[in-house]
């Protein structure tokens, strides 16, 4: 354990620390950030009113729009002189979200990452191949400094040029890979295609920036022979480092001394109980540069407080099962792309990538799934391929309660991005 004093603390000690830090950060944000002050004042809430966790539920949510409206530095709580680093989201759907970090923030961030890598099984003897993009994206530098804090070796490859990446993985003898799940899959498949799997020394794959599924983990473990884990974070609360999986893979341990996580039923504005599924709402507990109160992540998850078999007592969140804004409503039925993914990944006769297309034809929603044929034995005759299409349709219908149009496509005809993958295309007019 990287920080046993926190990771193994008694639940009541963690709770006490969280409450004290919540009170402090609320006062800090109120004093220094106009948006929070205005919002508190508008509802007559004062930082000193927050005496319990229940009281904290009165704090208004912060949304992505709030962060954008205050672009670029409106939510910073310290003068620029104290900010030593800026990061930003890609901003593909509007103005980017900007984060400012003080030196202390960077140190805390690296600690969070070092803990997560340690719980994934890493030590200071590992060589980390960091295939996250370096730049404004929080992933590259975030993991980079975490690896250094751990004392391991970092290979800052960044993204792109897959064949060269595989050469470097081989030549530098990397033992751990840091990548998005989709890029990890792509690297694994490419390495297999190049016939170099036996030359790789990878034993860990630490994935983040996108949600992965159990099936992807199984596929990666199978191809690379490395132990995959997932970790979680988002630019808005500082980047990766909120939580990560330990070797038990029974949820992601939250860095609870740094983040206060609530699971909320947003439509009913109700904080949910342990085990209940809802939207993750995060408050940064120690951020100086840009504290964020009750940020609505739109990620759907649940939290458990049971002590973990690994010995840690920190709360664990489930892998993100979907996003409130990823959720597709098809003919009135709620569909998460992750549900489709888990059906497809559970079928060994299919390839490892897929694409979902939603369209409206004659006022009817149509859900179409494109998937690659993986098992070449099915090419002996058409009836086997037709049977495969029927099987996919059946399996999807069981899970989604919907009729889905299935199309078999050639490998690599599905768009593969070397970063976050856009697997869903919604062609319906808004």
């Amino acid at each position, binding site marked *: 354990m990287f920080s046993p004093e926190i990771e193994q603390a008694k639940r009541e000690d963690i709770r006490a620390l969280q409450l004290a830090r919540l009170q402090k950060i609320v006062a800090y944000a109120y004093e220094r950030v106009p948006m929070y002050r205005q919002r508190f004042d508008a509802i007559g809430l004062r930082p000193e009113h927050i005496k319990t966790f229940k009281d904290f539920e009165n704090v208004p949510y912060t949304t992505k729009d709030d962060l954008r409206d205050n672009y670029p530095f409106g939510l910073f709580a310290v003068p620029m002189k104290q900010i030593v680093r800026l990061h930003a989201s890609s901003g593909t759907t509007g103005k980017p979200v900007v984060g400012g970090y003080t030196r202390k923030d960077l140190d805390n961030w690296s600690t969070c990452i070092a803990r997560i890598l340690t719980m994934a099984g890493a030590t200071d003897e590992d060589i980390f191949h960091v295939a996250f993009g370096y730049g404004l994206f929080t992933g590259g530098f975030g993991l980079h400094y975490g690896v250094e804090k751990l004392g391991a070796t970092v290979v800052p490859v960044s993204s792109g040029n897959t064949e060269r990446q595989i050469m470097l993985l081989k030549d530098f003898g990397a033992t751990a890979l840091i990548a998005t799940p989709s890029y990890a899959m792509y690297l694994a498949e490419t390495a297999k*295609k190049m016939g170099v799997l036996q030359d790789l020394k990878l034993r860990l794959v630490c994935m983040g920036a996108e949600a992965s599924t159990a099936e992807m983990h199984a596929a990666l473990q199978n191809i690379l022979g490395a132990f995959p884990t997932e970790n979680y974070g988002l630019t808005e609360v500082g980047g990766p480092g909120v939580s990560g999986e330990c070797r038990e893979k029974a949820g992601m341990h939250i860095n609870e001394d740094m983040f206060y996580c609530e699971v909320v039923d947003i439509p009913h504005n109700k904080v949910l109980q342990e085990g209940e599924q809802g939207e993750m709402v995060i408050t940064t507990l120690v951020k100086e540069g840009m504290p964020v109160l009750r940020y609505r992540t739109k990620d759907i998850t649940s939290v458990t407080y049971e002590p973990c078999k690994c010995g840690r007592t920190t709360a664990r969140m489930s892998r993100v099962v979907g996003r409130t804004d990823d959720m597709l409503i098809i003919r009135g039925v709620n569909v998460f792309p992750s549900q489709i993914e888990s059906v497809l990944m559970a079928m060994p006769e299919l*390839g490892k990538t897929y694409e979902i297309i939603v369209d409206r034809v004659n006022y009817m929603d149509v859900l179409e799934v494109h998937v*690659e*044929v*993986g098992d*070449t*034995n*099915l*090419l*002996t*005759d*058409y009836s086997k*391929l037709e049977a495969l299409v029927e099987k996919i349709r059946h399996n999807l219908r069981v899970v989604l309660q919907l009729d889905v149009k299935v*199309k*078999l*496509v*050639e*490998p*690599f*005809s599905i768009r593969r991005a070397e970063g976050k993958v856009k697997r869903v295309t919604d062609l319906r007019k808004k």
Partner: protein
Amino acid sequence: MLVKQLSVFMENRPGRLYKLTHALGKEGVDFVTLSIADTKDYGIVRFIARDNERAYEILKNEGFTVGITELIGVEVDDKPNALAEVVALMEEADMNIEYLYSFVLTNHNTAKILMRVEDTDRAVAMLRQKGIKLLSEKIL
């Protein structure tokens, strides 16, 4: 006694067949046979190359989904009713032919028939017993 055929999954959209034939052509791989049935969204391109193993490697590296299927090949005189006689034998033995195609090589005066059947072993034994000349890959 069986003939290996390569089967490639192909989407039904422009340029795909060119990509396949060119991938092999530029490497100097020669086709002996090639057949495609028309379907709506996708097809299976079935072919035998002069050097099947090389063709398989090339296509795999180019990212095609390619599989190997074993066919029964028979050689008959290039004259009327020759095909019918073979088909009749199969029907008599109650053996279903999934698909079949035939071709004639220049400077041979025989026709070759390639068949995909469910129970290859049984069909081979039957045809051999009836004195039908079976092809091996080498004869191609």
